């Protein structure tokens, strides 16, 4: 069977997709590990499908027997009734088993999808941030959701369909051979034609479909680009030009779609045609056999009904094969997530900042870091920050200020050198303890769908309502929250929904205010926030910073001037450090930035 399938064009296609048979085997083995816990159900499904095949093939045989005794004048109703009752029982049992199998099969599938999703999601909680930075969120989400579904549909449902199909073919063949060898031969010789026709059409339309996908992709790109920026298109009066481009693409897509759709829709009529040929042949040779007394009329009816059933599983199997290919590709994508190496585990049990007793001294000793091996970023960086000091990070946009945050929070580890908090190497500290010692407010605000209260309590779920209000007040957020329809219980949608950028940032500040750790990482607002809200944020920052070691990505000159230490960044590297006066006196990049204003 395997050799036969490999000869089919479908399998040749699979090879084109750069996935070797070996790779596919490895992936299937991994899928098997997910099936293992449900192996008893899977075995039950397979046993059931054998029984169902047997039952549904036995019914026509019984019908044939009844037909044989339907001779005018010789009819014995009692005998017929006995047969009919037997048929009824078998039909009912088969139907019940069918339901049982379908339901069990669905259950196994859903459970496996759940397990795979759970493992993929859980793994994403411990993979290095670098992996998440490299892979867009949308892509990972589609692996967890869509690929898991496709894997289930193609691999699990497909597998049972495949198994039932093969079983049906084999069983039909066996019964037919037992009933009448010559006629079975006729069926066996003609039927593969239908399989060949189906795969011939599929390979030849494959090229058309990939052309169609390409064309459609190009058109979608134009649609996305235009509609996402419709206002700009209108501002420049480009509607007609774009419509023309769209029309050309649309015409081409029409041509190719028509071909693809038409040729692919030939499969059904063509296989049905082959089917009809088989039927005619069975009718002819069966008829001769009956005339020659080698077969009964009832048996002929059985053969006729088998010959229609026999080709059906072939068509189904050929469909399943393409789906299997797709499912294996999806499985590959999702296993890549599940098998991604997690970050090294923490050396100690989770500890709270109090247990660590963080004072807030931060030292970088000869730190070297880069995201990409051959593209050096931070080199030989040294700095000493005393508890309670303010450090301003300045530089033009895109200079890599987030790199510093990444290293301090241990979202990324340094390549060489050490970062120490209170003279302890942060790699020797549990990540959770280190991260809890920092309060972080980024410009790129992230809020969760839920109530305002949920969001403020994010870091301290057991906070009392009074604590929540106090934190909101300290963050200057209380007044706008109270004006919302349901106050603190207002539900905000994904990504903050109806709130303005400034309000979102105030909520993020309130979130940190509630637990107020000994060290802070802050990001000053740039253009997107109005002056008054910006002032509030500024005041909230100032209040938080008292007595805390603070790293602040600074845009405002007042913040920069007041900082104890200024780190000047350019092109990813820290090029100067010192305070305002010393940097001005040095006359370097900082001085040129300052004097340009």
């Amino acid at each position, binding site marked *: 069977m395997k050799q036969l399938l490999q000869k089919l064009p479908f399998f040749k296609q699979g090879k084109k997709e750069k996935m070797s048979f070996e790779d596919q085997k490895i992936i299937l083995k991994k899928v098997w590990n997910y099936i293992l816990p449900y192996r008893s159900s899977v075995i039950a499904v397979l046993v059931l499908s054998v029984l169902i095949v047997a039952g549904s093939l036995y019914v026509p045989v019984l019908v044939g027997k009844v037909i044989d005794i339907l001779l005018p004048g010789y009819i014995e109703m009692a005998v017929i009734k006995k047969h009919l009752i037997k048929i009824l029982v078998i039909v009912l049992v088969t139907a019940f088993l069918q339901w049982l199998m379908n339901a069990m099969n669905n259950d196994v599938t859903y459970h496996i999808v759940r397990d795979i999703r759970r493992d993929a999601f859980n793994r994403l909680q411990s993979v290095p941030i670098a992996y998440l930075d490299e892979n867009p969120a949308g892509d990972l989400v589609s692996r967890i959701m869509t690929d898991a579904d496709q894997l289930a549909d193609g691999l699990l449902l497909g597998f049972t369909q495949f198994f039932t199909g093969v079983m049906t073919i084999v069983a039909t063949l066996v019964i037919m051979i037992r009933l009448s060898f010559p006629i079975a031969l006729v069926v066996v010789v003609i039927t593969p034609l239908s399989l060949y026709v189906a795969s011939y059409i599929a390979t030849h339309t494959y090229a058309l479909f990939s052309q169609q996908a390409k064309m459609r992709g190009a058109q979608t790109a134009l649609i996305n680009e235009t509609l996402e920026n419709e206002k700009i298109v*209108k501002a420049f009066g*480009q509607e007609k030009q774009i419509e023309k481009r769209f029309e050309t693409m649309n015409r081409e897509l029409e041509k190719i779609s028509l071909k693809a*759709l038409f040729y692919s829709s030939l499969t059904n009529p063509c296989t049905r045609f082959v089917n009809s040929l088989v039927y005619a042949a069975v009718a002819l040779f069966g008829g001769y056999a009956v005339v020659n007394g080698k077969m009964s009329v009832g048996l002929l009816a059985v053969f006729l009904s088998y010959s229609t059933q026999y080709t059906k599983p072939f068509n189904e199997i050929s469909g399943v094969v393409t789906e299997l290919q797709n499912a294996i590709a999806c499985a590959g994508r999702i296993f890549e997530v599940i098998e991604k190496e997690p970050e090294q585990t923490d050396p100690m049990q989770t500890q709270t900042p109090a247990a660590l007793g963080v004072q807030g001294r931060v030292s970088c000793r000869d730190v070297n870091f880069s995201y990409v091996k051959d593209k050096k970023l931070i080199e030989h960086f040294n700095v000493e920050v005393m508890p309670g000091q303010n450090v301003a990070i300045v530089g033009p946009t895109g200079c890599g200020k987030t790199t510093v945050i990444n290293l301090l929070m241990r979202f990324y580890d340094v390549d060489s050198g050490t970062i120490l908090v209170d003279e302890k190497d942060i790699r020797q500290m549990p990540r959770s303890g280190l991260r809890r010692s920092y309060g972080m407010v980024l410009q790129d605000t992230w809020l969760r769908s839920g109530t305002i209260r949920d969001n403020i309590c994010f870091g301290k779920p057991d906070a009392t309502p009074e604590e929540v209000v106090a934190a909101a007040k300290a963050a200057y957020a209380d007044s706008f929250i109270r004006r919302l329809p349901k106050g603190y219980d207002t539900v905000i949608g994904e990504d903050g929904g109806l709130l303005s950028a400034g309000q979102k940032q105030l909520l993020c500040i309130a979130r940190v205010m509630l637990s107020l750790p000994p060290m802070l990482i802050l990001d000053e607002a740039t253009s997107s926030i109005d002056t008054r809200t910006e002032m509030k944020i500024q005041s909230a920052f100032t209040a938080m910073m008292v007595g805390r070691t603070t790293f602040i990505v600074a845009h405002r000159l007042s913040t920069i001037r007041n900082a104890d230490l200024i780190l000047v960044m350019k092109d990813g590297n820290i090029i100067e450090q010192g305070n305002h006066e010393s940097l001005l006196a040095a006359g370097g990049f900082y001085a040129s930035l300052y004097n340009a204003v």
Partner: protein
Amino acid sequence: MKKLLPYLANYKKECILSPVFKMLEAIFELFVPLVVAAMIDQGIGYHKKGFLFGMSMLLVLLAIVGLGVSITAQYFAAKAAVGFATSLRQKLFSHLQSLSHTEIDAMGASTMITRMTGDITLVQNGVNMVLRLVLRSPFVVFGAMIMAFTIDPWTATVFVAVICGLSAVVFLIMNFNIPMMNDIQKKTDALTQTARENLTGVRVIRAFVKEQEEIARFKGRNEALLTQQEKTGKISALMNPLTYVIVNIGIILLIRSGAVQVDRGALTQGEVIALYNYMSQILVELIKLANLIVTINRALAGAGRVSEALEVKSSMSYPAVTGGSSQSAIPGECVSFSNVSLTYKDGGQPALSEINFTAMMGWTVGIIGGTGCGKSSLVNLIPRFYDTTSGSVRIFGKDVRDYTKNELSALVSVTPQKAVLFAGTIADNLRWGKEDATAAEMQEAVLMAQAGEVVEKKGGLSAVVEPGGKNFSGGQRQRLTVARALVGKKPILILDDSSSALDMVTDKRLREALRTREYPSTTFIVSQRTAAISDADMILVMDNGRIVASGKHEELLATCDLYREIHETQQKGAREVSA
């Protein structure tokens, strides 16, 4: 769906021919059991081998004709479906292009994109399936029933019962299942949202050490989905066994009543086999039909959404020819607003109220104020992106509503806040500002926009721009969008916060370059920074949709508290501001 039917009108012929050929195909198929019955009763009954051969050749002939007929039907169906989708897509795209900013705001880009892509594909599949398969099933089902009646009316009543029973089962299960499917969809969406939120907020989640809680949250929703799927799965798994049982009970009844009829000599053995075959055909068709119902449902939903989008009408119309005339008494007046107010549709609060000002030819007008104070709303009225709710906006003394669309776009060029470039080359993008711009004109604009080094670095004007300009940084894009606006040398230039991504040095050079332009131009600069507008001929200070003060930099510093406040917080060496 009804609203979309006119787009099928061009394919009326195909829409009729395809089902007609499908019907012919079904009829040819329905002849087969009759032929077989004849073979059994006559050929076998009277041992006529020649008759058997002739009849089997007839079967082959029926198959060949059936193939031809069915291929024809498939062709017409494909042609109608694809043609329909193509013209619908074109129509919808043009329609979306015709909408004004108000409707674009209301609909949102992602909705428009889904209508154009996914929804239309759904509709295309729907049309194709209906023409190809859905109409075939009733032909076969009812055809088989009619054939049964021609054979033996009494036994054929079983067919009526079976068809009623099957329809009831399919209908009931669908009725149960569709709401449950919707529930599954909702739970899937919730799970997707959880995953997406987790990934976009990974830094915050890890900073707060909330990984375990996230795992629990995902688990909760994952389990909820599973429970619902299990429940639904048990019901949808009923479909095939139930139809199987009904058809087979039909067969049992058929044989029973067939036996009586045969005994009475009213039916032959071959005819019973024919009836049996008809029953089997019905089962096959119904299973096919049931599998299609989901596709059809989704296509109908898609069609509903597409026709909704087509019904949205532009709220703005342009005169075909220039209307009105200059009502201006002031020579040299360029743009003037009188008593303008603007309330966005569904906006509640007015975005602009009582705006009055006049900008003279050649002026630079600075507009400053906090986010949401109405700066962009104000400049958006000049090229008539929105219509005022009351009051009028005049360019060269004439109401903007009296200009044709082409005239307006020849007068005003804009660099929007969002700096986007479009797929193509840099030159393609620049030509948006002027269709027949020469290389020299483009180069001039590029240099003025301080984008000379950008173009050079990317390899000249013919450098490729990826969709959205993704291969350019924010600052590079911003400079090129300024260049795009400058190419046309139009008399009014609007820079809507167009230097936010530029460093202060480049910003300063850009403004200097703009001042030295040789052609007369009135420039509006929207900014958050006083430095960017301090040398303007007139500065409008906005707050809460109103102009709270206007004048030159020095005057405003002396008279306007808000302006002074903004200015001071942005000055170097300013003292800590405490609220």
